[in-house]
C-alpha cells in the first residue's frame, strides 16, 4: 500500500485530520461520524485516557483530571502570562518542571504539555488509521503562524511522542490558503483571517500558478474565541454575585458549567439572534435552596461584550497589510478560518474592514486540516496532488516574529526581522564590554520591541572560550538560522579563532532530550482509548443518523451532567465521574459541529430554549477554575539559575571552573571597569536614528558581559543600575509570581 501522510489541525479547542489523495481531499471522521474532535484529554481513574468529545463531558464531571486547551500552554515558560492565567482558572494542577517548563499533575503523575498534546495527536492518528485501514506514521501538523520557536519545538515533540514523523509544521493560515487555492489554478492575493479558539492570525498570501508566497503574517497569541467565552462567563458570574451574593468563580464545578454554557451560547449566536442560557441548580444558597442562572444573551449584548476584542483583530490586520505593502482593496479574497468566524458579528466586521464578502465556501473548521493534508501528500511525493495544488510543495513562507539578541542596556538587537522569507541564515558580530571578559550571556528573544524584556525570551546560553582581550576587541559572530520548518538554531563563534568555541542552542520545548526519550519509552500515549473501536464494543456506536441538529443536541445532553450539578460538594464528583465513563459518548454525534450530512450549516444549533444545559458538551474554552494550592513555591530555587544567572551563580562562584554556567567570581577591579564599560557601550546610549545606523554599520553591538551582572551595584553607579535592573527584570517577575502563588 502506498505510503500515506495525513494533515492534522491540532487546534486549541478542536482538532481535525484529513488526507489528500490525487485530486481529492477528505476529512476523516471519527467513530461517531464527527469530522472534528475536541482537543480535550480526560484521565480516567482506571488509568485509561479519553480524547475528544467524550472527554469533554468530563470537564464538568471531573475538571481536576480533564485537560482542555492544552495548546494555550504548550511551549510556554512557567512564568509566562498565559500560564499564570491558566493557573488561576484551571482546575487541574499546573506545576513547574525543569528549566521553567510546565508540568500538569494528574493524580500522582506528572505530564508535560507535549505529552498531553501527543494524546490528542494519537487520537487523530487512530481515527485516520481506522478510516484508512492502514498504519499512519507521517503527518503535517499545523501551528498558529504566530507560534514562537519554543511552541513549535514542543508541537514537534508532541508529534514524535504520538508516534508520528512530523514532515512539516505548517502555519495554519498558509494551510488554509493552500486548501483554498487547491486545484483552482488561481493567481490572487488573499488574506486569511484565522480566529481560532486561542489565537488570532492574519496572513496575506500571493497565490501564483504554482507558488504560494506568504507576503506577511501577523497575529496575537493572546486572543481567541476562548476570550469571548470568558467575557460571557464574567457577565453571568457578576450577575450571579449581584443577585445571590455567591461567587461562582470559586466553585470549580460551577465554573466549568458556566464555561460550557457560555461556549454553547456563543455557538448559538452564530446562527440565532439570541441564546437562552439556563443552568439549573448551579449553586445552593445558605438554606440549601437550588439557585439557577437564566439569561437571554442577545446578539447585541454579545457584541457589546466582545466588540473590542474583534476590533483588536483589525489592528493586527492593519499591521499585516502594511507589512505586505498592500491595502485592503488590493486583495482578491478573504478566507475565514476558525469556529468563531461563523459569528455574524465577526463576518460583518470582516466584510466592512476588507470591503468585500469573505469566502464562505470553505468550512472554517476543516480548511486548515485539508491544507495540511495537501501539503503532506505533496511532501511524500503524491504527484497528482502536487499538481492539483499547483505544485503545492512550493510554499514560500516567512518568519512571523523578529528574532533578536539581548545587548547592553536591556535592549534587543534584531538579527532577523519578521516577515523575512525562510529558510534564512543571518550573522551579526558583537563584542565584549569588559577587558579580559571570559564569557558572555547570549540571550535570544522573539518579538517586535527594542526593549529586551518586552519580547519573549526563547532561551539563552553562555558562550565562553573565546580569546581574552581588551573590551571591544573580541569579535563574536552570532548566527541565527531558521530552517524550512521555521525552527531556529543559534550559534556563537569567535570570529578570530573560528573553531572550538562554537555553541549551538536548540530551543526548549520544555523537554530535554533525555526526558523525551523517557517519555517515548514510557509511552503513556498508549493509554489513549480510541473512541472509534472502544465505544463500538460497548454500545454499537450510534450510526450517524443525521438528526435535526438543534433538537438532538439537548435530548441527550441532560444525561451526564444534569444530575451531577445537584450536589455542589466538590470532592464527591470525581468519584462519580469514572463510574459512567461512556454515558456521554452516545449522545455526542448530535452536538458535533459538523455531522457529515450537512457540514457547514449544522454547526452549532442549540435550540435557544435549552441552550444552556450544561451537558451540551461542545467545544471547550480554556480551563478555568481556581486552584487554591500554590504550585510553584517549591520550584523557586531551581527556577532562578536558568532565567538570569547572577544571584545563584554568585553563590556558586567558588566552584566556577567546573560549573557549566556560573558567573565568574567577582573580580576586584571589575567594579570600576564595569562603570567605564557601561559609559562606553555604543548601543546603550544611542537614541537617534543616525547614530543607530552608524552603530549597525560597524555591526557591533555590545553583548552584556556577565561581569556587569556580577558587579552591579545600583547604589553607587546609577548608569549601571538601570542596566542591571533590566537584567534582573525576569528574576523580579519570578518572585512576584511566586508571591502571588502563596
Amino acid at each position, binding site marked *: 500500500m502506498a505510503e500515506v501522510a495525513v494533515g492534522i489541525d491540532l487546534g486549541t479547542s478542536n482538532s481535525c485530520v484529513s488526507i489528500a489523495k490525487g485530486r481529492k481531499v477528505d476529512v476523516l471522521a471519527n467513530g461517531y461520524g464527527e469530522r472534528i474532535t475536541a482537543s480535550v484529554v480526560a484521565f480516567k481513574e482506571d488509568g485509561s485516557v479519553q480524547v475528544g468529545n467524550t472527554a469533554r463531558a468530563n470537564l464538568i464531571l471531573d475538571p481536576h483530571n480533564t485537560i482542555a486547551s492544552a495548546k494555550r500552554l504548550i511551549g510556554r515558560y512557567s512564568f509566562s502570562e498565559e500560564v499564570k492565567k491558566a493557573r488561576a482558572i484551571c482546575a487541574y494542577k499546573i506545576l513547574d518542571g525543569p528549566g521553567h517548563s510546565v508540568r500538569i499533575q494528574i493524580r500522582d503523575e506528572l505530564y508535560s504539555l507535549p505529552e498531553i498534546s501527543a494524546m490528542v495527536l494519537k487520537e487523530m492518528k487512530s481515527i485516520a488509521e481506522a478510516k484508512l485501514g492502514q498504519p499512519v506514521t507521517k503527518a503535517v501538523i499545523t501551528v498558529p503562524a504566530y507560534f514562537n520557536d519554543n511552541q513549535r519545538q514542543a508541537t514537534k515533540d508532541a508529534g514524535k511522542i504520538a508516534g508520528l514523523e512530523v514532515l512539516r509544521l505548517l502555519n495554519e493560515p498558509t494551510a488554509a490558503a493552500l486548501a483554498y487555492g487547491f486545484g483552482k489554478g488561481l493567481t490572487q492575493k488573499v488574506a486569511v483571517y484565522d480566529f481560532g479558539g486561542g489565537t488570532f492570525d492574519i496572513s496575506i498570501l500571493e497565490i*501564483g500558478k*504554482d*507558488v504560494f*508566497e506568504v507576503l506577511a503574517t501577523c497575529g496575537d497569541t493572546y486572543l481567541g474565541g476562548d476570550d469571548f467565552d470568558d467575557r460571557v462567563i464574567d457577565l453571568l458570574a457578576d450577575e450571579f454575585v449581584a443577585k445571590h451574593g455567591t461567587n461562582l468563580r470559586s466553585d470549580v464545578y460551577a465554573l466549568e458549567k458556566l464555561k460550557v454554557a457560555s461556549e454553547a451560547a456563543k455557538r448559538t449566536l452564530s446562527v440565532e439572534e439570541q441564546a437562552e442560557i439556563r443552568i439549573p441548580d448551579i449553586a445552593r444558597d445558605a438554606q440549601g435552596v437550588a439557585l439557577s442562572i437564566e439569561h437571554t444573551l442577545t446578539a447585541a449584548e454579545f457584541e457589546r461584550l466582545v466588540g473590542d476584542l474583534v476590533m483588536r483583530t483589525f489592528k493586527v490586520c492593519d499591521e499585516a497589510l502594511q507589512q505586505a505593502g498592500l491595502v485592503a482593496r488590493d486583495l482578491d479574497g478573504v478566507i475565514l478560518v476558525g469556529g468563531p468566524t461563523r459569528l455574524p458579528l465577526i463576518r460583518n466586521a470582516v466584510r466592512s474592514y476588507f470591503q468585500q464578502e469573505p469566502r464562505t465556501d470553505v468550512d472554517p473548521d476543516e480548511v486548515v486540516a485539508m491544507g495540511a493534508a495537501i501539503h503532506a501528500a*505533496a*511532501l511524500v*511525493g503524491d504527484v497528482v496532488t502536487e499538481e492539483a495544488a499547483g*505544485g503545492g*510543495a*512550493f*510554499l*514560500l513562507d516567512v518568519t512571523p516574529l523578529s528574532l533578536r539578541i539581548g545587548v547592553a542596556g536591556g535592549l534587543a*538587537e*534584531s*538579527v*532577523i*526581522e519578521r516577515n*523575512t*522569507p*525562510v*529558510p*534564512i*541564515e*543571518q*550573522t*551579526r558580530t558583537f563584542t565584549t564590554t569588559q577587558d579580559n571578559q571570559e564569557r558572555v550571556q547570549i540571550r535570544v528573544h522573539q518579538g517586535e520591541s527594542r526593549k529586551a524584556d518586552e519580547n519573549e525570551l526563547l532561551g539563552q546560553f553562555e558562550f565562553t572560550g573565546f580569546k581574552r582581550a581588551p573590551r571591544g576587541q573580541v569579535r563574536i559572530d552570532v548566527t541565527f*538560522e531558521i*530552517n*524550512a520548518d521555521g525552527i531556529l538554531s543559534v550559534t556563537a563563534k569567535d570570529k578570530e579563532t573560528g573553531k572550538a568555541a562554537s555553541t549551538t542552542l536548540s530551543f526548549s520545548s520544555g523537554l530535554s532530550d533525555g526526558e523525551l526519550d523517557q517519555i517515548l519509552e514510557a509511552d503513556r500515549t498508549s493509554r489513549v482509548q480510541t473512541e472509534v473501536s472502544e465505544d463500538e464494543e460497548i454500545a454499537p456506536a450510534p450510526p450517524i443518523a443525521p438528526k435535526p441538529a438543534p433538537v438532538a443536541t439537548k435530548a441527550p445532553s441532560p444525561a451526564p451532567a444534569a444530575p451531577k450539578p445537584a450536589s455542589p460538594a466538590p470532592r464527591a464528583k470525581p468519584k462519580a465521574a469514572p463510574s459512567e465513563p461512556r454515558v456521554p459518548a452516545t449522545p455526542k454525534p448530535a452536538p458535533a459541529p459538523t455531522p457529515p450530512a450537512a457540514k457547514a450549516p449544522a454547526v452549532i444549533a442549540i435550540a435557544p430554549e435549552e441552550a444552556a444545559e450544561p451537558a451540551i458538551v461542545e467545544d471547550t474554552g480554556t480551563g478555568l477554575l481556581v486552584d487554591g494550592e500554590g504550585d510553584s513555591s517549591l520550584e523557586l530555587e531551581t527556577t532562578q539559575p536558568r532565567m538570569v544567572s547572577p544571584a545563584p551563580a554568585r553563590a556558586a562562584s567558588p566552584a566556577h571552573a567546573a560549573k557549566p554556567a556560573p558567573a565568574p567570581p567577582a573580580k576586584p577591579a571589575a567594579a570600576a571597569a564595569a562603570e567605564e564599560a557601561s559609559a562606553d557601550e555604543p548601543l546603550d546610549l544611542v537614541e537617534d*536614528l*543616525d547614530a*543607530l*545606523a*552608524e552603530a*549597525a*554599520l560597524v*555591526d557591533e553591538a555590545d553583548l552584556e558581559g556577565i561581569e556587569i551582572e556580577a558587579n552591579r551595584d545600583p547604589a553607587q553607579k546609577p548608569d549601571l543600575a538601570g542596566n542591571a535592573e533590566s537584567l534582573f527584570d525576569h528574576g523580579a517577575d519570578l518572585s512576584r509570581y511566586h508571591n502571588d502563588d502563596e
Partner: protein
Amino acid sequence: MITAAEVRALVKLVDELDYYQLLELQRGAPASGVKQAYYATSRKLHPDANRHLEGADREALGRIAKRVSEAYQVLRDQRRRQAYDAQLSAGTNRIPLAEADARADKQALDDYLGKTPNGRRFFGLARADLDRGDLASAARNLKMALTFEPTNEGFKKKAEEVRLALRNAPPGHVGPPPIGR
C-alpha cells in the same frame, strides 16, 4: 529540480555569487522582475522541490536556499536594494539584512534632510518656499541643493514635482503669491 552534481558545484560557488547572479537577474532588472526570478529560482532550488537529495547534498542545498531567501529579501525592497548596489560596486557581494535596513533608514533620512550642510540649507529653503506656494523660488533652491548633492533621490523627486507643478500652473501662480508681499 536540481541534480546532486549541480548542487555540489553550486555550493562551492555560492559565496562568490552576488544576489543578482543567484537569482539570475540583470543588475538593472525592474522591481517586478525580482519576484519572478525568485519564484523561478525557488522552483529549481527550494528544498521541498528537491526531495531526492539527501545527507550532505541536502545540507548544501539548504545553504544555497538560505542565500536565495536573503537575496530576495534584499532585492525586493527598493531601499535595501539601493544600499546593496552601493556596496556591491565596492566589491562586497553580501549584505547582512540588519545592515541593509539600517542603511536604508539612514538613506531615507539623508534624502529627507540632506547630508551636506549646504544641501540641507537649500533644501530647507525650498521646502519653506513650497509651504508658501512659491514654486519658482522653490525650483531655484532645489537646483542649488542638487548642485551640492546631485545623487540625493529625495531632492531629485522634489525637484521633479516642482517642475511638473510649474508646468501645469497657470502663469499667474508661478511667482510668489500676492498676499505674501
